[in-house]
């Protein structure tokens, strides 16, 4: 099996090379527009209360893409399948869904479409007053610098600093997961699964053996 695995991964990687990363933007924005159109036309799940459903739809897609971004590195390490070419598009598309989620919150949910002044004041008070919104806003704000530097130019300019800064996702994804969990009423399994998944994906990045080896001599001394 060990001898077979690389060829299998290589075959997948070869196929993936023919897929252009911009396809993620095409699919992402088409999906976003399609859902907006369905909400506007009151179709399916949007038939009765479209605002809340659209808000959750965009938020959930953002969270899924954020978690998907965390899959890339462990997947490469464990299976040699490389999605690295798609990671920037995955991350940016997550950011665009976060923006859409926020736009629905401010423009439609809080009524900023009609009364921007009231809505913006409300965003501020809600952010301070409601911990789940505080956490969500923190995730959104932290994503901004990452989105702004998700380009070749910034990567070249920032060198090692870029990598360090983009480790912020290790904080952002759990924040987004907590934001989801916190708004649930009663015991709901879905937000918990996202948080557990995030925790596992982050745990895979930790060099546990290295940590143990570094720690044990200290303990002895």
């Amino acid at each position, binding site marked *: 099996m060990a001898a077979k695995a690389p060829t299998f991964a290589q075959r997948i990687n070869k196929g993936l090379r023919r897929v252009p990363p911009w396809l993620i933007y095409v699919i992402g924005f088409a999906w976003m527009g399609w859902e907006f159109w369905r909400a506007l036309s009151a179709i399916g799940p949007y038939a*009765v209360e*479209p*605002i*809340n459903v*659209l808000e959750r739809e965009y938020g959930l897609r953002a969270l899924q893409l954020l978690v998907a971004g965390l899959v890339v590195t462990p997947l490469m390490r464990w299976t040699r399948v490389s999605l690295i070419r798609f990671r920037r598009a995955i991350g940016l598309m997550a950011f665009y869904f976060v923006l859409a989620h926020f736009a629905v919150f401010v423009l439609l949910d809080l009524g900023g479409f009609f009364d921007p002044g009231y809505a913006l004041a409300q965003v501020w008070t809600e952010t301070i007053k409601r911990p789940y919104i505080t956490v969500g806003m923190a995730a959104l704000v932290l994503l901004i610098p990452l989105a702004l530097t998700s380009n070749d130019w910034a990567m070249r300019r920032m060198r090692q600093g870029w990598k360090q800064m983009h480790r912020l996702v290790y904080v952002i994804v759990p924040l987004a997961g907590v934001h989801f969990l916190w708004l649930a*009423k*009663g015991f*709901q399994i879905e937000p918990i699964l996202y948080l557990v998944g995030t925790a596992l994906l982050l745990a895979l990045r930790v060099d546990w053996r290295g940590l143990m080896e570094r720690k044990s001599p200290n303990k002895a001394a």
Partner: protein
Amino acid sequence: AAGLGLGPSMAAAQETLEPNSLEEITSYNNFYEFGTGKQDPERYADEMVIEPWSITVDGLVDNPGEYSLAELLGDLTPEERIYRFRCVEAWSMVVPWQGVELADILTRLGVQDEARYVAFETVVQPENMPGVRRGVLDFPYVEGLRLDEAMHPLTLLATGLYDQPMPKQNGAPIRLVVPWKYGFKSIKSIVRISLTAEEPPATWNRLNPREYGFYSNVNPNVDHPRWSQATERVIGGGLFAQRQPTQMFNGYDEVASLYEGMDLQAQF
């Protein structure tokens, strides 16, 4: 109902209570026995067995026992009541219920002098209820009212809406309707009515007393810790519906006297 979303004055809204459509009322529900999604009740409630239906009446009553739906109602004839329905999640609907006043039922059951509260319990059918199997809440769902609240003429035991038997997702075959309280107080699919001297437990209150008080009167001045209760979205206004101000007691001012001398900020 589209006009309601544009924020008419409150007095006007009260006079021109226009019911939401049957589709809106039956496809946007909270009935956690069937799942936490708003469409889960419509999707799964069909499985619930409502025939035969038996309601246990016990506690401080003269006529305890097991009642069928027909026995419980006796010669009372359900009448139509069009009420505003305000969910704790800050949305609202207008529903044309058919029901009888709970007071009439309680009088027939014979409330004893020591009784101070009425407790209710929802049916549990694990094999037919995915939410029960998943343990979303501590089932059976229970709720309660103070006796004077239960005896108020606005309080209904509803058996239908839109001139048809109660749809299963709305709490067939019989449910409580207390229009000045958040919707979760209006317990669905009732299988037990108990008269008690002590304040009975209420499911959401037991789960999180900071967020859901025993009284849970609609009150724009007491926020739910996780969201504001000052405004609500009237269902049916579409993607560009604006919130409208929430009214004290959901606009049913006639119940204010029940709470005289109570601090409704503390006893929310």
